[in-house]
């Protein structure tokens, strides 16, 4: 008779005794949870023993349970090693889940609004425990995921695994590659810093070239002619809702197809034209439980460990200044995985290279299994397709290189050089001018002329001579005027150059040498150039660094220096207003009695025209506390 009005654990205790009832209860629960394996079965599996019970209980979780219903119960030993898969498909799946988890954690702290988003990034970094680690992991995972998915595609191509019957698997894989690219790209915008705004602006503007619908697509994507509140919200929704939904759907289709057709074997393991993936001989079977399961869990740990280590010591997600549509940073590029399109765009027409070319390329990839219908998967028989694969890799690499800002984008040398020295941190790189330790920024005016001297002259002598020279020819005054124009306080304007204190400020010296080195690399664009760095104290703990380039102006046409027949640059000569004199040498007056003037070239003492002196300056402020990454 039961104590309770229904059969219960207490009845078991009464009937079998406490200990036995407990053990049987646990056994029963484990069997339910694993959909068929009791404690004994689990222990045997984890010890690596063969199953003692028949029928084999290790197969029931696949047959009866939900979680493993799509996983095969055994694999061919030939596909369980590094080759031929390199675990790239597994890694892709890993990153899908990794990104989902870290992404959801980040969503807790994020609001998709231009007024708030950047502040949220700062909050994540300044006020959320483990926030920085989460953000780094999500960002690094995203970069890895794009790379892994692309490599997965190349591997499939090289081993010919796209061939019949796996044509459609390849196609869904390609869709996943495109979705992955767009997922990563849409996430790029969310921090709402300069890096994201301009990378996405460039990326999104590529769509503009599409005929007929280009403008509309762009408008739909951005929600306004310029990226703003609507654009951010739309990218956010794409990133967290639409694209993940698509990704999970096609992930399901893709994996289902992989299982239906079986993991393709290494090409040399089967006869030409045969597909034996689903016919695994008994002696080649490796069972999911326990071998593949423990293997995958181990890799789960190992991969996560590697990413954790990378994010703690080697990688931090970039965060530049707040997005500003008014300020276009020099050298903006699309994200690295879209660089190939940006490179292609430099070849010519926006439509042909920005829209038609990528479409044809992707279309060609999609049709690949239907075009290449040769039966053999052996490398020796597929020289043509392997050549195409290598050409694709090479072309993408070259185009990506061409996509870099330094390729075929004309910026005047002085702007480029000063930018190179002072650019704000991005991708763990920073202009060398910002790396001078605070206590080495010793107030004063320094010039690269210090390095122009010849043997036997001390730096002090060179600078003294240079001071005299620039005072006499007005170049120093020109610099001071420029500095004042740039709102350097008049009482802080330098009076003369001084030598770089190399004992107290070795880094400053090195930076000035680098500055000089850059200037010397542009002898035709910047003839007779000198550079200067004026360091002033601005506030407590705050220095102002003014970078100046002074040179003789040359004629520039279409971004290139115009040369004469001897290969020397053509100068622009200085002119001045000179009073027009009549025959008797008296000034000619206009109706108001003012002397009429005309522009006339300035001549030096020997009667040669004097080149017009140009000056360029840019300044930055450095606070002793500010650090960008560490």
């Amino acid at each position, binding site marked *: 008779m039961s104590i309770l009005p229904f059969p219960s654990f207490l009845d078991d205790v009464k009937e079998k005794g406490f200990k036995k009832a407990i053990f049987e209860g646990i056994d029963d629960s484990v069997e339910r949870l694993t959909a068929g394996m009791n404690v004994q079965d689990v222990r045997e599996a984890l010890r690596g023993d063969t199953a003692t019970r028949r029928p084999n209980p290790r197969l029931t979780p696949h047959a009866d349970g939900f979680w493993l219903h799509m996983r095969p119960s055994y694999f061919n030993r030939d596909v369980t090693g590094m080759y031929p898969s390199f675990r790239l498909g597994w890694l892709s799946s890993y990153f899908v889940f990794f990104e989902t988890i870290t992404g959801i954690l980040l969503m807790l702290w994020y609001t998709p609004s231009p*007024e708030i988003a950047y502040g949220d990034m700062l909050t994540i970094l300044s006020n959320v425990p483990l926030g920085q680690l989460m953000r780094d992991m999500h960002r690094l995972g995203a970069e890895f995921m794009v790379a892994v998915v692309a490599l997965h595609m190349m591997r499939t191509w090289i081993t010919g695994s796209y061939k019949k019957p796996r044509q459609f698997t390849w196609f869904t894989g390609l869709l996943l590659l495109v979705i992955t690219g767009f997922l990563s790209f849409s996430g790029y915008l969310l921090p709402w810093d300069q890096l994201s705004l301009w990378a996405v602006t460039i990326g999104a503007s590529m769509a503009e070239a599409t005929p007929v619908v280009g403008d509309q697509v762009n408008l739909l994507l951005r929600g306004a002619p310029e990226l703003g509140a609507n654009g951010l919200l739309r990218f956010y929704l794409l990133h967290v809702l639409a694209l993940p939904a698509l990704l999970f759907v096609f992930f399901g289709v893709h994996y289902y197809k992989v299982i239906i057709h079986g993991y393709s074997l290494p090409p040399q393991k089967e006869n030409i034209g045969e597909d034996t993936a689903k016919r695994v001989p008994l002696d080649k079977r490796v069972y999911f439980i326990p071998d593949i399961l423990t293997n995958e869990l181990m890799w789960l740990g190992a991969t996560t460990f590697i990413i954790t280590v990378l994010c703690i010591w080697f990688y931090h997600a970039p965060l530049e200044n707040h997005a500003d549509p008014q300020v276009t940073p020099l050298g903006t590029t699309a994200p690295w995985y879209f660089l190939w399109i940006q490179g292609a765009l430099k070849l010519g027409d926006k439509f042909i290279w920005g829209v038609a070319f990528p479409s044809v390329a992707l279309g060609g990839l999609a049709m690949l299994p239907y075009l290449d219908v040769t039966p053999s998967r052996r490398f020796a028989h597929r020289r043509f397709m392997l050549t195409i694969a290598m050409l694709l890799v090479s072309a993408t690499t070259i185009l990506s290189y061409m996509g870099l800002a330094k390729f075929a984008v004309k910026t005047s040398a002085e702007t480029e050089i000063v930018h190179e020295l002072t650019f704000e941190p991005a991708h763990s790189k920073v202009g060398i001018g910002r790396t001078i330790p605070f206590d080495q920024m010793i107030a004063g005016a320094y010039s690269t002329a210090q390095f122009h001297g010849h043997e036997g002259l001390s730096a002090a002598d060179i600078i003294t001579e240079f001071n005299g020279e620039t005072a006499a020819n007005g170049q120093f005054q020109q610099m001071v005027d420029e500095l004042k124009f740039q709102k350097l306080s008049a009482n802080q304007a330098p009076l003369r150059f001084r030598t770089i204190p190399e004992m107290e400020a070795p880094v400053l010296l090195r930076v000035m040498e680098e500055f000089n080195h850059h200037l010397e690399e542009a002898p035709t664009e910047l003839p007779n150039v000198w550079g200067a760095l004026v360091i002033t104290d601005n*506030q407590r703990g705050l220095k*102002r660094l003014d970078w100046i380039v002074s040179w003789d102006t040359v004629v520039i046409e279409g971004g290139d220096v115009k040369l004469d027949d001897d290969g020397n640059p053509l100068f622009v000569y200085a002119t001045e207003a000179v009073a027009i004199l009549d025959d008797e040498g008296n000034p000619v007056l206009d109706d108001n009695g003012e002397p009429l003037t005309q522009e006339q070239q300035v001549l030096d003492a020997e009667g040669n025209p004097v080149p017009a002196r140009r000056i360029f300056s840019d300044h930055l402020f450095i606070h002793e506390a500010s650090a960008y990454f560490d």
Partner: protein
Amino acid sequence: MIKSVESRILTGIVMFVAIMILVGWVAINEEARMQAFVYQHTGRSIERGAELYASLCAECHGEQGYGALLRAPGLNNPHFFGYDPVGEQTAAIANANRTLVRLSDDSNDLFEELTNAANPPSDERQNQIQAEMEAIQAQIDDQRSIIAQAIAVRQAILGSLSTAVEKGLFPLWDTITDSDRTAFNEIEVFFNNNGARLAQVGWAGDLRGYVVTTLIHGRPGSLNIWPNSNGGMVAWSQLAGGALRQDQIEDLATYILNWDKGDNWTLEDFLAVEQYGKPLSDGSIPGVPQPDPAGDNPEMILARWAEEEIVGSAGNGAVLYDTKFGCTSCHRDGASAPDTIGTWTRVLNERLTQPQFAGYTGERYLIESIVLPAVYAVDSYSSGVMPADFGTRQMTDQQLADVVAFLKTQE
């Protein structure tokens, strides 16, 4: 694939434990990391604020925040940050006064006990009370002398501040003074009652709030106080139709507040702020006191040079000639005024040979030409073009000597 299940399990467990240790280690250090980030980010914020300040604010508030003539107040300003130059003395006086109250209470109690008719103290106790009262009296004298000393120091400090008041450090000065004020007392009133800028404008929030709000919405111009303020300060925030985002407003405020020296403001800082609320009653603009000008009497000038051994420097003269006094803008190429080049030669060979300059030295001729330009103009150039106030207002003896020395090199 690692062959045995055990080694895979072991590797996996090691990995997961390692991850947990790593993440735990990161978590332990998070507090410090976040603090460091806030510190570093404040630095970046100041940098960006400095950039914005230089391009947008420096024009009116001065490159170094000292304000601009008649236009906008200084922000790098002790008064703005609530510094009270006599705070220490005021506190010392208040403290001594409290002590005095306590001491006189004690003294009164003893006196009452001594004179209590109902219950007169014993002789022994009377002596004791008298001794105690004398001790208290000594302490009272000490406190009084402390007060007297503090008052003297305070008076001295306030006295030194009257130049700051003249320089317009306190734009509302006139509104709080009456006709028969004594400067010291009124400055005292100013600090005690009006204190810092925030109290003056009746702002109940903190300084950051004041700065941020002003940046967002701007403020009306006060032509009484800042005659050149051109209708006041515009609204800078996008919220109010301006150009700046909120984060930029915050950056600017961080930069401006970084001028605060806290407890380290000095009287020198008070006096360094170059801002002028309004012209003085005579219409002039107060400024750094200028050394006496040379005057317009060449003979006296020469006599003084001899007496005070003033010798000109051609190098300094060249700079003054080109920049400060702008002589070169006319005296070049001989178009509108005699060319600088060859001055000395012409003076010696052409001018001094003329009868009216008989007895002149070259120096005397040059001095007269500079301080009294109207006396003589070289033929073919019009007279009355050259400013006549170089001697009376612009040049000191030394500067005049420098310019003359420079001209003597122009052969």
